[in-house]
């Protein structure tokens, strides 16, 4: 049985149904609310998640017993392809629950924890946020200090988190805390922290886009029940990494598909932009440059498929996640930078100016470019990814500490 990139008949049936459903559901869901209208955003994001759930498309790969579809990895890939194609609503506030908190519970949670949270996450009833990074523990996550001290059947939490996404509207936080002050990696625990507990203070941290999707979070004597511990005490580092490693295979699938679309949009844009009477697309060099970028995107897409084939067959994800992350985030930045350059002076405005063909918005392109700057930093900067690849995959000696 040789290498085969084709989808199975089952995959294609799934695709056909999903495509038909999206064709109606996406326009029906309407336009997204303004960026800083938090109530409306929660409603819009949750509403879409609920529609996905009702149609059977929430948690494509999640177990059926918790409300998931229980489908294959390739069906998940088809899901990404079709939702990108239909320009379906972005996962938005459901991100942490669907992509991170939920999968962690599936892998490491108790039956009670799974029952309590997974169906609600899938139905859009529970929004999660992430409490990992701290001001002094960014790239160096093992340096985290937020303390959880056992007091009877509670942990008492004190400390400060940063880059807590959607904290204003979240119901739960996946919280990494230090339960052993004397250990490094082995003194960390993973807790489910309800966001309505007393002692939690949220301070929005505007990004360079001006949005407040992220916050600083201060916890002071917050009492989290012991049963909210996921995995064993002091085993939170492993719990996190297991999920991260599983996640990385497909984490960028949706974004890569989006990037393929962007390159086609750039061809359209290039035909529209004229200089000295000729369109930018008339310039062979631009066609080549876009071609080159497109080839790189295609190769990353093939890497994702390779990774998924590996995972589907062996159950063990390869180590290539860091390579996909590094390759994708750097490439993504180069592509959007070229797009903004192509916009010329129109790129000086975040509101759309002039008319662009095919529903392209100059403002959207510029903002997406700005957003690419975060991806080479967040979730392990490009520098950290290179260390990981070199040390863990290629076996280079670790940094002297």
């Amino acid at each position, binding site marked *: 049985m040789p290498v085969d990139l084709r989808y199975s008949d089952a995959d294609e049936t799934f695709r056909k149904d999903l495509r038909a459903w999206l064709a109606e559901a996406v326009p029906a869901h309407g336009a997204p609310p303004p960026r800083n209208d938090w109530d409306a955003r929660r409603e819009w994001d949750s509403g879409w998640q609920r529609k996905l759930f009702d149609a059977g498309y929430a948690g494509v790969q999640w177990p059926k017993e918790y409300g998931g579809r229980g489908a294959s990895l390739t069906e998940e890939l088809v899901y990404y392809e079709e939702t990108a194609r239909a320009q379906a609503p972005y996962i938005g506030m459901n991100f942490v629950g669907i992509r991170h908190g939920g999968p962690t519970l599936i892998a490491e949670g108790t039956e009670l924890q799974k029952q309590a949270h997974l169906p609600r996450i899938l139905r859009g009833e529970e929004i999660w946020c992430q409490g990992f990074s701290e001001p002094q523990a960014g790239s160096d996550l093992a340096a985290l200090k937020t303390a959880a001290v056992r007091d009877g059947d509670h942990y008492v939490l004190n400390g400060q988190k940063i880059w807590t996404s959607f904290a204003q509207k979240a119901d739960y936080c996946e919280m990494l805390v230090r339960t052993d002050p004397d250990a490094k990696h082995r003194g960390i625990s993973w807790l489910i922290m309800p966001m309505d507990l007393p002692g939690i203070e949220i301070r929005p941290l505007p990004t360079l886009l001006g949005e407040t999707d992220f916050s600083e979070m201060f916890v002071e004597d917050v009492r989290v029940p012991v049963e909210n511990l996921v995995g064993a005490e002091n085993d939170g580092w492993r719990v996190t990494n297991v999920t991260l490693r599983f996640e990385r295979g497909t984490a960028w699938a949706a974004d890569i598909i989006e990037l393929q679309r962007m390159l086609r949009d750039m061809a359209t844009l290039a035909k529209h932009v004229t200089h*000295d009477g000729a369109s930018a697309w008339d310039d062979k060099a631009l066609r080549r440059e876009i071609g080159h970028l497109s080839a790189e995107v295609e190769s990353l897409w093939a890497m994702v498929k390779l990774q998924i084939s590996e995972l589907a067959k062996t159950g063990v994800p390869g180590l290539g996640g860091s390579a996909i992350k590094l390759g994708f985030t750097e490439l993504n930045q180069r592509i959007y930078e070229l797009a903004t350059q192509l916009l010329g002076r129109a790129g000086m405005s975040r509101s759309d100016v002039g008319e662009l063909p095919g529903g392209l918005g100059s403002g959207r392109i510029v903002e997406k470019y700005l957003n690419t700057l*975060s991806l080479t930093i967040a979730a392990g900067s490009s520098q950290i990814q290179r260390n990981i690849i070199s040390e863990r995959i290629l076996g280079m000696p670790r940094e002297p500490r």
Partner: protein
Amino acid sequence: MDFRVTEDQAALQEGIRSFCEGRVPVDALGGMEKQPLDRELHGELAEMGVFGLRLEESEGGVGLGMSEAALVFAELGRRLVTGPLIWSHLAAGLVDGAGSGECVVTGLDRTRASNEPILLEYLEGAGSVLVLEASGVRRIDAAAIEARAIATPLDPLTPLHHAAALPEGESIGDAALSARLRREGAILSAAMLLGVCESTLELAVAYGQQREQFGRPIGGFQAIKHILADMYVRQEQVRSAVYAAAATADGRGVGDVDRAVATAKLLAGEFALKNARACVQVYGGMGFTWEMPPHYYLKRVFVLQNAFGSADEHALTVGEGLEGDAG
């Protein structure tokens, strides 16, 4: 041959630098967002000679050249000083009151045909608008332009207006003047981009020394060191190219002035963007926040890059210049 900054020049540079540091400190950038044109600041800059720098003393100017202007504008770029500074400088001697700061002048370069939208910087508060066209220079009363304000300009410190079309205005110069102003504008925007290279490196260096991860300053890691070193090389390339272009425009160069100017503008735009991006990366997560200064520089680069000729145009000028030399 003398390519060093002289004592007089250094004093001028230092004067502007300390003015900027006191008047528009980097930690006050937030307060300057989406503000209308700061007329008071504009007046103070005029008094310091920023606009009349190259006018003869008999015309109320300082009688200096592009070399000095480049040094001054590098300082202005370094501190992200706001206002249509380059246009007001170019207009000195051409538009009444531009040199003295009484009339704020903004402008638009339309020498190359394109279907780009008409975007005007600092239209509100300006008296006149200079328009460079291939055939000559026009002056338009700012009040005569119908334009709507852009709600969210990319650079929060550079207010923008969008106009569907521009009125005719009056012709105030021929094609030669238009070409000269465009060249000078390119040098001055390259100089401001040099300032961006300097400040982003300065910021990244300071952050590299102060921010600790894995138990030591991140600037001690080669990953960061090498980013900073590459920033330094780019900054020095830009500095050399900008000084050379200005000297050549002053008639004290050895080569073709168009080539020297294209070289400076091309490298300044590209390298300032790379350095601003690198600065964000060195800052890590904090570089992605609005609270930290790097993003202001990155955004300003887009404004300056899109002034007085695109990178593609300048690269072509330099490349095709080689042909003539060949053999």
